[in-house]
């Protein structure tokens, strides 16, 4: 394997990793805060991409890429809040919330995907690229679109990290995630913070959808593959820290790039799932997770 190919595979893996980091962080925000797994996250990604298309594409409103991304993120925040209110909140007091939320979020995903199908049809679409052309850096040439995309992802994740660590609302969300009862006793409005967490997660999904839509074709079911990848990443890295899924995302992206190169396109996902199962058996709390006596 030549150095060129190696660099090519690595950059491919890093781009994948950046996208996975965005998806997995969105998934992890809901998981850590509410303790449930949101199966509608893939549909959020698809919905985000389609809203952006509706606003930005020349065939529709034609307001440009930036307006599309912004509108999509804001719109999806409210979709996320609505999903929390309709799909999760009614079941919060049920003892089997984990199982019930699986079926309700699956139902929500079904509604969103069918809604996309009705509104925009099943013909595949594509968002315009952010920038055209290639960039070269230290002898590596990648498309400018992917480079910009990676920069954007890093900026978004940094802002999110700062929000969670510094902003009062972000700190309140982390407090609720750590101990719901104590947070409630301290006067935090838990249902509101849950709604914000869901909305934030959906907004991150919208970003992911906007980026995925510019490098791949969009279909109503475009979110199911990213959802599976995000699931692998979250399990792989655990959710002990905000950064755990991000590191895990880049590792998974690199593994996938190398597995695709060596084992072929069809075997790459199988390798990933096998690795995920091994991680779950040996260290259920994730690679970067802390040891806990009980795993809920």
């Amino acid at each position, binding site marked *: 394997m030549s150095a060129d190919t190696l660099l090519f595979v690595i950059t491919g893996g890093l781009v994948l990793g950046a996208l996975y980091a965005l998806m997995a962080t969105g998934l992890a925000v809901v998981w850590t805060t509410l303790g449930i797994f949101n199966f509608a996250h893939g549909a959020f990604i698809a919905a985000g991409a389609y809203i952006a298309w509706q606003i930005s594409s020349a065939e529709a409103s034609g307001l440009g890429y930036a307006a599309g991304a912004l509108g999509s993120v804001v719109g999806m925040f409210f979709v996320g809040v609505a999903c929390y209110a309709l799909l999760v909140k009614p079941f919060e007091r049920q003892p089997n919330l984990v199982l019930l939320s699986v079926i309700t979020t699956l139902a929500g995903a*079904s509604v969103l995907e069918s809604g996309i199908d009705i509104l925009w049809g099943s013909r595949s679409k594509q968002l315009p690229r952010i920038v055209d052309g290639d960039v070269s850096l230290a002898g590596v040439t990648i498309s400018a679109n992917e480079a910009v995309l990676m920069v954007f992802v890093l900026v978004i994740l940094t802002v999110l990290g700062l929000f969670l660590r510094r902003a009062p609302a972000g700190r309140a969300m982390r407090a609720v995630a750590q101990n719901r009862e104590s947070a409630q006793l301290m006067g935090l409005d838990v249902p509101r913070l849950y709604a914000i967490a869901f909305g934030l997660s959906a907004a991150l999904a919208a970003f992911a959808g906007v980026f995925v839509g510019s490098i791949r074709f969009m279909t109503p079911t475009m979110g199911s593959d990213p959802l599976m990848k995000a699931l692998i990443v979250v*399990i792989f890295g655990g959710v002990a820290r905000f950064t755990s899924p991000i590191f895990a995302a880049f590792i998974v992206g690199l593994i996938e790039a190398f597995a695709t190169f060596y084992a072929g396109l069809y075997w790459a*996902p199988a390798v990933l799932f096998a690795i995920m199962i091994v991680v779950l058996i040996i260290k259920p709390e994730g690679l970067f997770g802390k040891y806990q006596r009980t795993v809920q």
Partner: protein
Amino acid sequence: MRYDPPFPKSNGFRPTLIALAVLAVLPFIFTDSYSRHILILAFVFAIVAASWDLSLGFGGLFNFAHVALFAVGVYTYGILAKTLGVSPWIAMPAGGITAMALAGLIALPVLRLSGIYVILVTIAFSQLIYQVIISQSDITGGTSGMVTLPSLELFDYRFIKNHRIGYYYTALALLIAATAFLYTLTRSRFGRAIVAMRDNKYYAMSRGVSEARTRLLALMASGLFTGIAGGFYGSYVRVASPDAFGLGFLTLLLSILLLGGAATIWGPLIAALIITVLSEAMGDLGPWRNIIIAVTIVLVLVFYPGGLWAAFQELREVFDTVRTGLIARLRRSREKAAREARLNATETMIRTRHGLIAAADSGEPDGEAGPPILMIHGNSSCKEVFANQFKAFGKTHRMISFDLPGHGVSANADPEKVYNVPAYAEIAEDVLDFYGVERPIVFGWSLGGYIALELAASGRAVRGVAIAGTPPLAVAPDDVGQAYDATSHFILAGKQYLSPMEMRNFATATAGEKTPGTAYLHEAVNRTDGRARFYMITKLMVVNWPRQMRMLREGAVPFAILNGSDDPFLNHGYIAGLTYGAIWTGQPHDIADGGHAPFVRKPDAFNTAFSAFIGEACDR
């Protein structure tokens, strides 16, 4: 100790027979291929969902690779029957074997995890199998799957002929076999181990249930008929496609399971029929169909988290309440003369603070009179159970008795407020106040014994208390295990719905064999509001038991225990071991061969003893 009647004698037997008969003649009503196609699909989904219920509902194992077990059954059939040319009749059950083997593999990671991690690892497992299958395109056909699989035939009769009649009955036979398998399994020792492992893992382990073995076998058992159904499905649609791994199929099955009600077996069977028919009926709505189904699922789960089965149970309770209420209302006027003749007393409907109560009063006796006597009957009985005593003591005592709410000809009542011992004691007070009776002798039988003790302990002035078939308790429900011998009939005391056999067993164990003379006591069980049994047992905790015990220990009230020596429910050693301040004859008095109701079985011996107790109580 758990009580399960054999299936032919349980409540579910007759409805099951009716459902089977309907399903057997259904193809003669729906003669076209399309209707039968929908029914066949519904049967297949029902088998898969009900099998999933074993691991998910009963076992609490969130195995989301269950759809993979089904898909593996389909592919096993495809590879064996088409590629290797094996007979479809062997390839179909072979699907069950491979699915079981795969379930065993899935169990390995599941054994170490719990909760949401099980969901995640099984989804990963399912995706792993999916990836392996689509990567082996020369064997499995890759993403496009395998087509033109061999179909079922027997002696050159192709099952697809005559509008799929052969497939219909094969699917029905599979459904019956799968249901029988799951039903038997959940009621077996092993089935109880599965549920115990779900409800209290560490307690089950301390009682010798192996966690690994139980979970492994539960998953494998859930795979058996899933795989066979997969094989059948492969022979029916003649395609093995990787679509079965998708979230769509998973959502369909999960909604069948949760809509029907987890841990019920029957719920998913009904829900499979409803959802399949509904989703086919909306087939031309396109994407709207998915939206309608998804919204329906969420709405049902919001209003009935227990699924349609829970809704059905509520309906059944309403029906049973109306039925027992109507029986009471009809009898109130119609058979009044017969009841009054039986007791030689006048019956009055009294409006108490807990509803309308039927009470009987023999009136002040002529000549020299002893103290008035209040007699309180037991669970699922009626005041006429004391016919012998009313006749024997009616000439010398004023005899009073009443039907508990939900029993006899008293009205049914609010189960939350009325069906408990303290409320019953308040009703007894109201009845005494209505007749203006002061300081009676109170006799209580079984549940009535607790009411009598509660009445006296709450401060009502009584001349004496006698109980039969009642072990006094200090702590409920902890003492119940010691105080009673846990026979299977004892479980019936708190069971809401009794089958005809159970009614007979319960009445025989409490009041004796059915004879023309005691037929009305057997009938009383049928009239009793099932909620009265259920709520009374679940609300045993609201009684102030230590107060009753203290009263017995202090001995200020003359007290007698008149048990049958062969009472099938009581632990006589427990009763004899308690401390009594003032008990007639110094110890519990046993009446030979009296059973649970000595005053019915051995009225003469009972009346002699009771009369002696009354005499001593009046002398004090």
